[in-house]
């Protein structure tokens, strides 16, 4: 497998300059059809504990190899399909792919948007409208890993369902509301025994410009631009599974709340976000045991603070991020802090760039299911190309 990754990385390095203009749009009468995608490939180095004898995670890796197809018919209909061949490799190598609770990594999005003057409808497999970090693309972030709280641990990033949304131009507000399967990325392997949809809603506002899902101030905004949003989700599922902590879906009632805000000014950008889940599992009593006591519900969640600076003359982005994740509130001091640093060298903005990121995990008190510490500190370097 290492040879495959090495081949992919070397091929990417050789052909990146050629691919950087590989953008295609076809036009036929009242239709447009566009082919795009991105590739992110690089190397990961881990700072293992001293007693470690297995260094298999030090390796070349293919983070993303995505292909997107999108089209528009007149001004009323749009459709999107996005797949990730990097995820397909994960699906092939994951022996539990067909078993309940396993997440699909190949299909990233497949939906149709129907627009009307009153409301727009988005139907299919899509990102659920919850928080800024959960909706942003990884290629837009100077870092190479998502904060734990926004990485499919307390709320699904994607699900099968319908979203209604509308932009109010006078106020600058966009409102989203939707109903989904409740199974998140496990929807293609797992049925929801309750048959109850998951509901999600989000309201976002920006001034003086429109809300944009960007981490970096590419426009080096000459005036401060402020954005904020709040989101909520409610689910009543019949399965406890998924995510790094195995409660992406909970067999019981789950409420999730979140709020986020961003400021952009003269190349600086600051993002803050807080997300909180409260779950009342029915069939998973082990989740309710905390230090010998059985509770009726538990909470999980965390915070993210990210500061980025785009230095255009140096074609560089410098970024620092702190995030904290509490997987359960039933054990005292049970949280994980991560401090991350990133440097991006933008050959052509983020269409073609080199990214280097270091993650320092400290205050780790929560063991992974196999009893070891959840994550090692790591240093990653990748090359990224977008062709859409």
């Amino acid at each position, binding site marked *: 497998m290492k040879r495959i990754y090495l081949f992919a990385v070397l091929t990417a390095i050789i052909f990146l300059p050629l691919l950087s*203009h590989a953008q295609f*749009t076809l*036009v036929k009468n009242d239709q447009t059809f566009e082919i*795009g995608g991105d590739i992110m490939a690089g*190397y990961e180095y881990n700072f293992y504990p001293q007693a470690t004898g297995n260094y298999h995670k030090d390796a070349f890796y293919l983070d993303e190899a995505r292909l997107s197809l999108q089209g528009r018919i007149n*001004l009323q209909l749009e459709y999107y399909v996005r797949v990730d061949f990097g995820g397909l490799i994960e699906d092939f190598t994951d022996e539990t792919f067909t078993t309940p609770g396993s997440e699909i990594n190949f299909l990233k999005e497949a939906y149709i948007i129907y627009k009307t003057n009153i409301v727009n409808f988005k139907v299919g497999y899509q990102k659920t409208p919850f928080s800024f970090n959960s909706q942003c693309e990884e290629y837009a972030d100077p870092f190479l890993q998502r904060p734990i709280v926004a990485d499919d641990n307390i709320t699904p990033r994607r699900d099968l369902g319908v979203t209604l949304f509308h932009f109010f131009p006078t106020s600058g507000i966009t409102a989203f509301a939707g109903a989904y399967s409740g199974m998140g990325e496990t929807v293609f392997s797992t049925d929801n025994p309750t048959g109850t949809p998951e509901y999600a809603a989000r309201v976002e506002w920006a001034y003086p*410009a429109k809300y944009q899902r960007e981490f970096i101030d590419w426009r080096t905004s000459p005036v401060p*631009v402020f954005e904020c949003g709040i989101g909520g989700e409610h689910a009543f599922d019949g399965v406890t599974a998924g995510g790094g902590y195995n409660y992406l879906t909970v067999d019981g009632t789950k409420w999730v709340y979140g709020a986020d805000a961003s400021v952009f000014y003269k190349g600086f950008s600051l993002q803050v976000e807080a997300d909180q889940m409260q779950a009342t599992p029915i069939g998973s009593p082990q989740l309710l045991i905390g230090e010998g006591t059985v509770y009726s519900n538990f909470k999980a969640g965390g915070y993210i603070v990210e500061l980025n600076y785009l230095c255009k003359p140096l074609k560089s982005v410098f970024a620092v991020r702190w995030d904290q994740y509490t997987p359960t509130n039933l054990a005292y001091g049970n949280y994980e802090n991560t401090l991350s640093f990133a440097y991006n*060298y933008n050959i052509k903005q983020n269409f073609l760039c080199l990214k280097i990121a270091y993650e320092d995990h400290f205050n780790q008190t929560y063991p992974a299911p196999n009893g070891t510490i959840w994550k090692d500190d790591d240093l990653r370097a990748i090359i990224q190309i977008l062709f859409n």
Partner: protein
Amino acid sequence: MNYILLIFLFLFFPPSKSTVVKEKIKTLKYTSWTSLRISDASGITKAGNHFYIVNDKGGLYETDGMGKIIRYKAMGWDNEDICFANGKLYVVDESGRRILEVDTQTLKTVAEHVLQYAGARNLGLESLAYVADKHEFVAISEKQPSVMFILDEKFNVVNQFKINGFDDISGATFYNHKLYILSDEDHVVIKVNPDNLTPDDFTWEEKWNVPIYNPEGICFDEDGTMRIVSDQCRRIYVFPNPDQQ
């Protein structure tokens, strides 16, 4: 061994020293701005006593000088710029890859001219201007790369070349024998001599900073007053003649 790879990657893409030189340019000050009742306004031109604004939603608006709507016509899908030439309006539809020829009296589309461009749907032709001195149109793609197409009056491409040195190009207009080009992400306006619209000769005579977020369209009054529309801020900004600032 692992560190050798990282060092190799740094060496492979070293920051260019030439890019570190910072250019000092004058910042223009606007005298007023007004909120538009037009979302995603991306192009503006003046014809007679009225202004015409196009937007990303496929709209053409006839307005007064401060953006008050007089007439509206739906046309195209993703209109990015507009210019006035030979008694007609010309609208560039970015994702439709076409230029629409519009009658100013009726606002009816009287002809469509297809311009093939292979870039991403929202990275197509973003700017359109008519260089009256040469009886040519200039159409410019937005970014990655920004390419200037010189078109004759029948919309045949007579020349094309990349514009380097800008993150993007968002608008263009012709005034007083000069071509003015607007960049959204760099928020600058440059003044170009139309005689220099060739691959080797392209350069600019003046460059000004415009402190506006997301400027997308630019035009001039007869007296040199400059108007710039901001797409995301839904505003129209008025500047005194930049040559006299």
